[in-house]
Structure formats: structure tokens, C-alpha cells
């Protein structure tokens, strides 16, 4: 049994504000062994309680500013050090660009297999318990479901948001400082500027349980899309056509070269459903579309679709919801 081995989870946070995905990762870690949070950079005072609440048994802390001043490699060095020190059953990281790159370098450095974009991770069944956890990935724009496992070294796995429901059983969260100095080699790529994006006040796109997205069919007016999102308490997303037209910022793009979302409900408005768009939303639990073209490929995916003009349909939905809520 892997029961007592540690499982390292890289905490995703901004200045100590811990993101929900970390709770999901700690929950998955608890299935595989003993969840240890790895907190890098300044801000542990703000994060401590949250990490305990999410069930961390241990919290490794390296509060060096080097990990935020330089790209990727300092974090790899700390994790490499912890992998050697704790021989964990697995290392789990968030499946965002930086998490994947840290994972990539860590895997090469430790001679370990890497699995990215897992949507589920389970402990192996008894027969091959030594073979490490089994991951599920969704590939080819959601067309295939692949199960895989790491066969060399320490399993390094990046996990997508919404892959587990955070278990709110608190853990002891015993803190252990990691005293190490980051090497000069790790300081080659210096972050010289960082402008935080202004928050829209809506839920974060990749974490939201409902996403309402607009495409070229909005004609540039995202008003009806935003109104519906607000009526539903949802995040707003956009297709690449809408982003390329300058109608909505790139950080809201859903799809192959944007964000992947996996909410309970995805509402596509004026979006045709190109394969690259599907790649970012096809694992949503329920899919709804409003499109005036009955032949649009998005309708192949929907649980509920309306063939109609979004400029009249969306306001009607928003009104009905508001009326119901009173």
C-alpha cells in the first residue's frame, strides 16, 4: 500500500491567496497517500488556514522571493530537493502553463514520467499497487478518454481544474521550512515586470461552475452574454474569433490555445463549435447553445439548444431568471 507515503502538491497561489484547484489537488493526494502542500514564495501567513482546511498533513514552506522573481526553475529546484528528501508517491501540480513547465523540468531532472492535463487520478488497484496511480486524460478535443500511468521514477502529474470536489476535512498542516538557496543557474530568466490583470468581479473562468461564452455571433456586443452570466453567477468566456476581433481579452479565450474549462454548465452563444473551441469545453457536464444556424456543429454537443438570434433569446433568459429570483 502507498498509504503512508507522502504526495507532494504544489500550491497555486498569488501572494498567499490559495486557489480552489489546490483544494482539489490535496483531495486527490489524500487518495494516494499523505497530502503534503508545497508552498513557495511569500504569503504563507495568508495561506496557512486554507491549506489546513483543505486537508494538508504537512506544509513545506520556502518563502524565498527568488521563486517569484525568476521563471519556473527555482520552483523546480525546491521540488527536486523535496522529491529526494521525501521519495513521494507522486507530485501533483496545477495544469496551467507554469505548472506544466515546472512539471516538465522536474520530470527530466528526476528521470520521472510526466502526465499532463489529467481529469482524474486514482490509486492503483491491489494487483499492481506498486505501479503507481492511474490517470484519466481527455484527448483529441474530448473525443477519446485515455488511462495511463507513470512507469519510471516518481509520477509527476498535472491536474486540470474541476477534477475533484475539494474535501473539507481539515488536516494538521504541520509546517516545515525548506532552507535552501536557489542556484545562480536557476536565476537566468528574470521576471522584470508583472501587471496583475484587473478582476472582472465574476468567478474565475477555469474554476467557475457555470461559464457563458460569446463568439463571432455576438457581433461585438458582449452585453447580453455578460447579463446572462451575471444572472447565473457565471464566468464569461469567448471564442478565438471574438478575441481576434478585439471584442474580449485573450485571457478569456476558451479552447485549444486558450483556457480549458470543465464547468457544470457551459453556455455557447453565437459560437459555431469548431474543433479547437471544443477542445477547451467538451468535458463540461452540461452544454447549452444559442445559435441562429441550425446546422452549426455546436448543436451536436448540446443537452439543450435554441436555434435563434442571441440578441433576443439571451435577454429573455436573463429576464426569466431574474424574475424567478425575485
Amino acid at each position, binding site marked *: 500500500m502507498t498509504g503512508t507515503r507522502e504526495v507532494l502538491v504544489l500550491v497555486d497561489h498569488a501572494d498567499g491567496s490559495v486557489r480552489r484547484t489546490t483544494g482539489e489537488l490535496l483531495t486527490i493526494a489524500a487518495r494516494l497517500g499523505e497530502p503534503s502542500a508545497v508552498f513557495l514564495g511569500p504569503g504563507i501567513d495568508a495561506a496557512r488556514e486554507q491549506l489546513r482546511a483543505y486537508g494538508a498533513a504537512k506544509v513545506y514552506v520556502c518563502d524565498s522571493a527568488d521563486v517569484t522573481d525568476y521563471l519556473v526553475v527555482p520552483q523546480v529546484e525546491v521540488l527536486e530537493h523535496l522529491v529526494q528528501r521525501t521519495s513521494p508517491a507522486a507530485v501533483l501540480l496545477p495544469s496551467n502553463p507554469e505548472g506544466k513547465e515546472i512539471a516538465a523540468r522536474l520530470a527530466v531532472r528526476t528521470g520521472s514520467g*510526466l502526465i499532463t492535463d489529467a481529469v482524474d487520478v486514482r490509486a492503483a488497484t491491489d494487483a499492481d499497487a506498486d505501479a503507481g496511480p492511474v490517470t484519466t486524460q481527455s484527448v483529441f478535443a474530448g473525443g477519446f478518454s485515455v*488511462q495511463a500511468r507513470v512507469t519510471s521514477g516518481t509520477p509527476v502529474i498535472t491536474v486540470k481544474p474541476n477534477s475533484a470536489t475539494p474535501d473539507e476535512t481539515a488536516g494538521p498542516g504541520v509546517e516545515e521550512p525548506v532552507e535552501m538557496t536557489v542556484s545562480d543557474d536557476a536565476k537566468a530568466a528574470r521576471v522584470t515586470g508583472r501587471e496583475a490583470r484587473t478582476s472582472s468581479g465574476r468567478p474565475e473562468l477555469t474554476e467557475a461552475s457555470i461559464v457563458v461564452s460569446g463568439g463571432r455571433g455576438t457581433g461585438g456586443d458582449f452585453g447580453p452574454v455578460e447579463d446572462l452570466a451575471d444572472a447565473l453567477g457565471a464566468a464569461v468566456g469567448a471564442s478565438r474569433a471574438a478575441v481576434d476581433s478585439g471584442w474580449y481579452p485573450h485571457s478569456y479565450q476558451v479552447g485549444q490555445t486558450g483556457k480549458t474549462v470543465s464547468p457544470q454548465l457551459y453556455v455557447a452563444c453565437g459560437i459555431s463549435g469548431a474543433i479547437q473551441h471544443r477542445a477547451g469545453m467538451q468535458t463540461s457536464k452540461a452544454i447549452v447553445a444559442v445559435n441562429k444556424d441550425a446546422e452549426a456543429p455546436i448543436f451536436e454537443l448540446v443537452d439543450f439548444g435554441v436555434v435563434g438570434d442571441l440578441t433576443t433569446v439571451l435577454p429573455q433568459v436573463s429576464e426569466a431568471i431574474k424574475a424567478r429570483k425575485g
Partner: protein
Amino acid sequence: MRIVVCVKLVPDATASRSFEPDHTVDRVSVDGLLSELDEYAVEEALRIRDAASEDGEVVAVTMGPQAAADAVRKSLQMGADSGVHVLDEAIAGSDAPATSLVLAATLRKLGADTGPVDLVVCGMASTDGTMGVVPAMLAERLGLPQLTYANQVTVDDSNGAYRVQVRRDSDLATETVEAAAPVVVSVTDQINEPRYPSFKGIMAAKKKPVQTWSLSDVGVDPAEVGLSAAWTAVVSAEARPPRSAGTVVTDEGDGGTRLAEYLVEKKFV
């Protein structure tokens, strides 16, 4: 400036893609093309070469089966100067660590044969694997800094040495990151508008040199690559059952109301 651009031939994403019985991507029954995301890398490499004060060179490098040479050819047609194709039966089924191992060895050989490489440009991800990890692994293997997911690349050569600066969007912020060359850069589809090969470019490409190297040419042991050496194993790959057909209604003045009723019924409201 000597620039290497890493390019990959991928199955056409708009065709129906699937797996071979050994769980490797079926690269035979679907037409291959230069990964669209690598076109941005080629374009950026050409722009950096052409903007530099001194003469520069862009070498397109690929690793893959016979057909992968098409990815190099397309790069040459766009304007790259020469190409290298690493071709070896043992490569089939290589995972990202093995791919980065071979590419790193290829870059070392290029450096040793024809002089140091200042910049390596990759796409942000390949459109078939979509892992987006080869650039970081390549940087790790070469011991180089990485400047990845660039929406903008600026090269400053004012002090006799190249400094590379990129702008990138992380989840919560827009960052500027810089490093001294040599560096590995990866670029997003926000960075530029890739050119189409001109007729002149297509003709000129026919005369450009392409070298084909085996694993022994680049000094990689065949036992370290390919499906059998992979550090991960696929346990199963199943086509997802098609989503069961949903309800589609045509708006006759009450489309929004009916959608709202659906949302209420499913407890989203």
C-alpha cells in the same frame, strides 16, 4: 543570429483522429501537416532574423517519420534557410522526454558542426499531443533558460551580446521576462500572422539544403527512445461515447423562456 525553429508534422486536426493498437497516435491514415502552432514559431524566427543588424540564419529542425520532412519543407518555403530531419525507426512512439532528448542532441550537433545557436524557437504546443512541455524539457536538457508562451519577443543586440525579452500572459498577470542568449523560446498564436509561402518561396525551397540524420549521427542510444523506453504507459484508450442527442428547439418568440425552464429544471438557477 543563428536561430533554430523546432517544427512538427501532425495529423490534420479537422480529420477524424485515432490511435493505433499500441496506443500511439495514428499518423498513417490521416494527412499530416506542419502543426499550425509551429507556423507562428517559423514566422517569428524569420522576423527576428530579418530585424537583426547582422546576417542571420534560420534552421528548421524536426524529428519524426519520413513524412515529417514536409514540416521542414513548409518552413523552408516560408523562408527558413536550411533544415535538419532526424529520422530513425527507433524513434517511433517517443514520448516528450525522449523527443526532447533527441532534439537536444540535434541542437548540440548543429552547434558543434556549424557554430553556436543563439535562439531556439518552438510552438506553444503541438496540435496533436498538446502537452506543451517539449520546450521546457529541451531547455532543461540543454541547461538553458526558457522564455515560454511568448505573445511578443524582442531581441536586443546593442551590447554585442543578445538579450531576449518576452511578454507572456500567466493565469493572473501579464509578465515581462528576460534572459541572455542562448535561450529557448516558445510562442503563442497571439504573436504574429504567419505568412503563406509565395511562389518564389516554394521554388527557392527546392534548392535549400536539408540534412537527414540518424540517431547515431546525433549520438543518442536507440534504447533511450521510442515506445519501449517511454516513461509513461497508456493503459487504455477509448472513444468517448458520443453525447446523447439533446433537445434543440427553434425560437418562435419563446426560445429564451424555454431555455430558462431547462435551466430551472436542471437546478442551475
